[in-house]
């Protein structure tokens, strides 16, 4: 009489064991192991050459770029450098919701580790190279507040020797106006229009070279290994993680959620935890700031940028400009879409999102759980309801991505 039940139980137990067995030995399925493997820092491809910048990998250019990055004389008030906001001891960011220099900007400062691996720069990707990107803050009134003519003169007056060793002889800038730029104040724009074509071109050439030196330096800023990387190396090798590479049950649960049910891996994928693409995730606008349509408003500016890959200051031919040639130019998906940020080091650098809308990781996870509708466009986030334990697990996992 007892036997049939026991047999049934044994069958059920066997089925359960088989189902769970699919996840053994290290508690991860083969598919999970494959994805974990892809997230390791060691999977990061060697940095590709940048054909638009022929000095991109020259040590001399990188050293000059480092000097410029930290030089506060590259500003209208003599106080601001790139490092004012991109702080070397703070993951090259500033921990503020909105960046501050001469004024307060509309967006949050982005960290710079391994930034050179991506095709697009800024939260909306409105520049397509690091050197073209660097030119923007230099002339932005709320950031460095300078202008390209003043920067060109500064190269001749203060940096002639270092500049010329990399880029060749500077043109004669003796008759050049003090302050002129197509993007500056009304007066600066008027002076720029009055300058001759050749003179403007010479200034733009030197200006773009300043960007190219800074870009060469930025290409050397890299992520450091994290606890997660040590853990993942062990998992992939089929070893038991040892020492600080060992994950707690909560951290493992968080990792499983991240690559599984919570779908974070859809966008935060690869060794930099970003797909280098733009998504509307329903992050609300900040009251008082101008309307920010993200990628939707960036495409026209990118195409019209004289310093883009197809422009005459690029050292590459059009065949190297695949990203620009084949980028998505329109469509509803660009509305309020922002670049997926890397999550390496994110736990240690609140606040979050493109204008610092979210103060803590707890609230970030709440955001993904609530999945609010977007202010405009369509959010791609389908809410995943997390238990309190699930939320804690995701956060515990994100902390394993902090450097050290």
């Amino acid at each position, binding site marked *: *009489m007892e036997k*049939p*039940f026991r047999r*049934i*139980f044994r*069958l*059920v137990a066997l*089925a*359960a064991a088989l*189902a769970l067995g*699919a996840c053994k030995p290290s508690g991860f*399925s083969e*598919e999970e192991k494959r*994805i974990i493997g*892809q997230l390791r820092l060691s999977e990061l491809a060697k940095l590709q050459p940048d054909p638009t910048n022929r000095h991109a990998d020259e040590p001399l250019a990188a050293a000059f770029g480092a000097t410029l990055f930290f030089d506060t004389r590259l500003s209208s008030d003599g106080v601001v450098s790139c490092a004012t906001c991109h702080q070397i001891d703070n993951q090259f960011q500033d921990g503020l919701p909105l960046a501050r220099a001469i004024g307060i900007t509309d967006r949050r400062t982005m960290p710079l580790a391994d930034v050179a691996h991506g*095709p697009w720069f800024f939260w909306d990707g409105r520049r397509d190279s690091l050197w073209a990107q660097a030119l923007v803050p230099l002339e932005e009134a709320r950031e460095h507040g300078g202008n390209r003519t003043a920067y060109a003169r500064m190269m001749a007056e203060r940096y002639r020797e270092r500049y010329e060793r990399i880029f060749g002889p500077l043109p004669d800038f003796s008759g050049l106006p003090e302050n002129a730029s197509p993007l500056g104040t009304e007066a600066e724009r008027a002076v720029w229009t009055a300058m001759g074509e050749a003179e403007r071109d010479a200034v733009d050439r030197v200006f773009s070279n300043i960007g190219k030196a800074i870009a060469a330096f930025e290409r050397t800023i890299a992520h450091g290994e994290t606890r997660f990387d040590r853990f993942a190396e062990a998992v992939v090798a089929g070893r038991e993680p040892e020492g600080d590479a060992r994950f707690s049950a909560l951290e493992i649960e968080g990792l499983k959620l991240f690559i*599984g*049910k919570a779908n974070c*891996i*859809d*966008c935060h*994928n*690869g060794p930099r935890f970003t*797909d*280098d*693409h733009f998504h509307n995730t329903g992050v609300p606008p900040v009251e008082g700031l101008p309307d920010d349509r993200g990628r939707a408003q960036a495409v026209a500016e990118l195409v019209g940028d004289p310093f883009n890959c197809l422009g005459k200051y690029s050292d590459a031919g059009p065949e190297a400009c*695949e*990203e620009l*040639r*084949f*980028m*998505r*130019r329109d*469509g509803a*998906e660009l509305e309020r879409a922002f670049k997926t940020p890397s999550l390496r080091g994110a736990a240690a650098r609140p606040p979050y999102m493109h204008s610092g809308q979210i103060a803590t990781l707890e609230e970030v996870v709440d955001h993904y759980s609530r999945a609010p509708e977007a202010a405009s466009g369509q959010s*791609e986030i389908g809410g995943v309801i997390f238990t309190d334990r699930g939320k804690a697990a995701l956060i515990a996992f994100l902390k394993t991505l902090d450097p050290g």
Partner: protein
Amino acid sequence: MAGKSRTILIVAAGIAAIVIAGMLAMHFLSAPSDDLDLSRSKASAAGLYRVSVAPEAEPLRQGPLHSWIVTVATPDGAAVEDARITVDGGMPQHSHGLPTEPQSTGHIGDGRYRIEGVRFNMGGWWVLKFAIEAPAGRDEAEFNVVL
């Protein structure tokens, strides 16, 4: 006795159901759909062409911008050399399109066309749709890709 055995049976069936549901869930999490047609060669929707596709370089990888080669032939195997091909696609389960705008950059011989600018920025099930316009008429072919 009978009541007890029934209870045990119900409990056992319940456990079995949970185990099966769990296995199914795991299955669906890792693979979009097992019976997805992953063939890389097929007749176009209205049967005007035989269309074959392949990434220019294997293995297919998530992330990098890359090219595909599309080969267009008539149903009896003659190369179609004057086709205009446009590309569309996306992720059906995410209701979003392709992250880029891939384009045919021309005929490279024997009915083969290079499609440049393809990127798959997420893992999972993708669809690539090719619209083909040639003297025989306009037709479409859809291919599934799983990463």
